[in-house]
């Protein structure tokens, strides 16, 4: 059974409280048209719902974008709030989730094992459901698109060790609050989250010969240090050496998790809960030479790490690397170099203010050029979510969609490698993808989603595709069995690109 979301559920919020704090968004004339409204929704949301193109056009594309750049001022959809309220695991802290997991895994009885399994399944379901529901229903669409982007950029994997209890918490606490703030804070939040510390092994990174290492087989682990530079900040061509990787690994020693009981005053003992902690006994206190800077061994240890993160966040290579990635996601697989350069300049001038970088991109003529419209092949997640949005349908049972995403190669939180999912056409457009997407379109268009019935209205779906369809789409529609027309729309080339 599926429910149709009512348009009354606050699709567009007209008033906004912080208009005076941010300068208005200045767009070229082409952006202020109906097609401009559609392009904005294709890129800055997970795809238009029926009626949205008209609404955004009416209120002014620039005003809608200004709102989206200030998500906290947009009231959230009541339907989404209701859906999220039904997922109690969502708001629990990383420590609480870890403690429950640790307690359950100790019980080796059959009963204990099945309780443990049930907990893990419910947790995985809740997290993926929330992720999907937000993409489908949130009024803060740009924030959700960016949450998806930055999660993928700072990817962690559900399947690695304890990360299955933390991925949802990581998204909610380390990613979403920071996607339109300063990059330095986003970097810090990911660096301190147990999901990242566990995923890239830094919780075990220990100075050889340090107090904690004595008598144990412990020492340096350079996994996080390398990916922190290669993927998270500078980029592989960012001008660092193997020496810099090793030095950064030394700097990062001790940056980890609370894995041992801690004694407090009055005989109080804090049990290990795998929350973030700096362990001074694991740290390397020697001087380091990192990216040309001398980092003095500090008596406290952790300030070196803050210093290294600041160096990385403020580095011109980081500005360039991440401007490129944003432009590749939002503008074109091969983004215009001049645009990337201007975004990187804004990055440096604004000290990594991600909202300012987004604004430079959105206000650019390149963003609105006809050749950059409808040129981004949707990833499986974008394809599935945009299809449901075009039908204004939200699933009561998300499992068939999870299965579909798995088959299409993009399960939620399911990519093992730290580079995340690819965001370009060459990764996703292939024969098997065509067969599966068209089969999914056929199921939806003929009223099926898993065992549920669903109703996709042809005219509504058509209204999200703009004024003109491609000639081959028109031709195929004219020749088709009327029962397949909605399926054809959802499977059309017009719909495969955003």
């Amino acid at each position, binding site marked *: 059974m599926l429910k149709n979301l009512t348009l009354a559920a606050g699709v567009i919020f007209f008033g906004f409280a912080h208009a005076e704090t941010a300068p208005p968004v200045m767009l070229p004339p082409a952006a202020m048209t109906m097609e401009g409204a559609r392009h904005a929704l294709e890129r800055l949301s997970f795809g238009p719902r029926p009626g949205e193109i008209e609404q955004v056009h009416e209120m002014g594309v620039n005003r809608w974008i200004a709102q989206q750049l200030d998500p906290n001022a947009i009231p959230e959809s009541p339907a989404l709030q209701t859906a999220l309220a039904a997922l109690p695991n969502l708001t629990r802290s990383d420590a609480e989730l870890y403690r429950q997991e640790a307690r359950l895994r100790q019980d080796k009885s059959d009963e204990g094992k099945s309780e443990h399994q049930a907990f893990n399944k419910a947790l995985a379901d809740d997290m993926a459901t929330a992720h999907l529901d937000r993409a489908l229903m949130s009024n803060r669409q740009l924030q959700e698109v960016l949450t998806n982007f930055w999660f993928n950029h700072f990817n962690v994997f559900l399947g690695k060790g304890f990360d299955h209890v933390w991925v949802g918490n990581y998204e909610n606490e380390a990613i979403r609050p920071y996607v339109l703030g300063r990059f330095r804070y986003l970097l810090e939040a990911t660096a301190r989250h147990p999901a990242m510390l566990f995923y890239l*092994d830094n919780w*075990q*990174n*220990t100075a*050889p010969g340090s107090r904690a*290492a004595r008598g144990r*087989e*412990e*020492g*340096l*682990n*350079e*996994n996080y240090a*390398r990916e922190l530079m*290669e993927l998270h900040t500078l980029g*592989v061509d960012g001008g660092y050496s*193997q020496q810099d*990787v090793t030095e950064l690994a030394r700097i990062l020693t001790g940056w980890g998790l609370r894995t041992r009981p801690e004694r407090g005053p009055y005989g109080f003992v804090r049990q290990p809960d795998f929350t973030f902690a700096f362990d001074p006994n694991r740290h390397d206190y020697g001087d380091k030479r990192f990216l040309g800077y001398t980092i003095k061994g500090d008596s406290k240890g952790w300030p070196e790490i803050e210093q290294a993160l600041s160096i990385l966040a403020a580095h011109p290579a980081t500005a360039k690397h991440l401007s490129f990635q944003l432009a590749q996601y939002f503008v074109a697989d091969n983004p215009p170099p001049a645009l990337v350069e201007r975004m990187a300049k804004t990055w440096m001038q604004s000290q990594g203010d991600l909202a300012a970088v987004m604004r430079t991109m959105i206000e650019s003529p390149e963003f609105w050029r006809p050749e950059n419209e409808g040129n981004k092949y949707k990833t*499986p997640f974008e394809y599935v979510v945009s299809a449901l949005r075009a039908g204004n349908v939200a699933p009561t049972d998300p499992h068939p969609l999870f299965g579909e995403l798995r*088959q*299409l*190669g*993009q399960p939620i939180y399911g990519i*093992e*490698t730290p*580079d995340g999912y*690819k965001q370009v*056409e*060459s*990764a*996703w*457009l*292939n*024969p*098997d*993808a*065509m*067969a*599966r997407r*068209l*089969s999914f379109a*056929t*199921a939806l268009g003929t009223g099926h989603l898993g065992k549920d019935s669903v109703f996709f209205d042809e005219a509504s779906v058509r209204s999200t595709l703009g004024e003109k369809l491609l000639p*081959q*789409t028109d*031709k*195929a529609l004219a*020749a*088709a*069995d009327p029962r*397949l027309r909605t*399926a*054809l729309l959802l*499977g*059309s*080339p017009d719909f*495969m690109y955003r």
Partner: protein
Amino acid sequence: MNRRRFLLAASAAFALPFGRSGWLLRAAESESGQRRLVVIFLRGAVDGLSVVAPYGDDDYYAARRSIALRPPGREDGLLALDGHFGLHPALQPLMGYWQNGSLGFVQACGSPDPTRSHFDAQLYMENGTPGRGATSEGWLNRLLATLPGPHEPTQALSFGPQMPRILAGPQPVANIALGPAAEKPLAIDRPGVNEAFAQLYGGDDKMSQAFKQSSQARQQMQADMAAPVMDEKEQMAANNGAPLPDGFPGDAARLGHMMRQDPSIRVAFMALGGWDTHVSQGNAQGQLAGRLKPLGEGLSKLVTSLGPAFRDTLIIVMSEFGRTVHENGNGGTDHGHGNVMWLLGGTVMGGKVHGTWPGLAADRLYQQRDLAVTSDFRGVIGSAVTRHLRLPEGAAAALFPGASIGGGAPVLVRA
């Protein structure tokens, strides 16, 4: 789904005549000794020093206090290969192929590029131009262009929902799902649905090409899967009422079966992840052993299901780089350089660890930490593949532009 249900579905889906591309015709062709190639890519950098371990080097034991494998003959020890190297005990299912000479290795093989980035190193091994990321085609796709026609959509088969870089390029390539889902009919297999979308995707654009390739490949594949295997014993084993198991052994068996049925499949590719063992790698037991076991079982399944076609098949197992010679602080290994390449097949000059072993002494290591590369992967693959597929002189240069693959490359397969 069980085989019977699949047969029903497949026959319902494909009432169309197969014509020239019918599998019956192809099955007859399979006697022709058509040479084929399978590439298995271990993403994440497998620890080659644990796959083919140099137990004859004292430096090996000095560098790896907790993760080194014991010499052959000891409890949980290596499987003896040649007196210096031993095979990881989890790869026991492959020992028969070593003994009959169809499994060989090239130690200290790798890329001339120094990168320790997984993603760059994989890119270079797939596009075949180390140091040059901009090459958008993969060397397997360039290889397809050098093969004699006709170039059918099923000439190359990739497993998994994403098309890997190694197969990217103008030559048509089909991909199919991993696991039993590969055999499951989809809505698009229904003639009415297929025809409706064929109207939409009848052009020459990328999507239309992908659509046509997918339609043809799905027909062929489902016919291949539905066809009975020739060997009666094998058929009984295969039928047994159960679907193929999940994971690599199942996919490998599926691949072998399809290649045996369908000689139009000249090249196949599959990638396996989970080799990035920075922490608690283990030795005879543990994380790495747990990955190698299904790999060994799967390769063995691939060989058996290929049946007589194994004679004409070369299977290459490769990985983007090796791992540090010294274990790190967490019972794991970090990103390194040289690795081992595996060659398995009827034409392989096996039973031998090929290549020049640089040793593990401190002054022999690459950048004082890694196994040095003494065989360029382009030379190894270039010479093996061109000989195996009986390609004209100079074909290797087309696969790996810019590489100097001279007569000096080791001879690893019989022509």
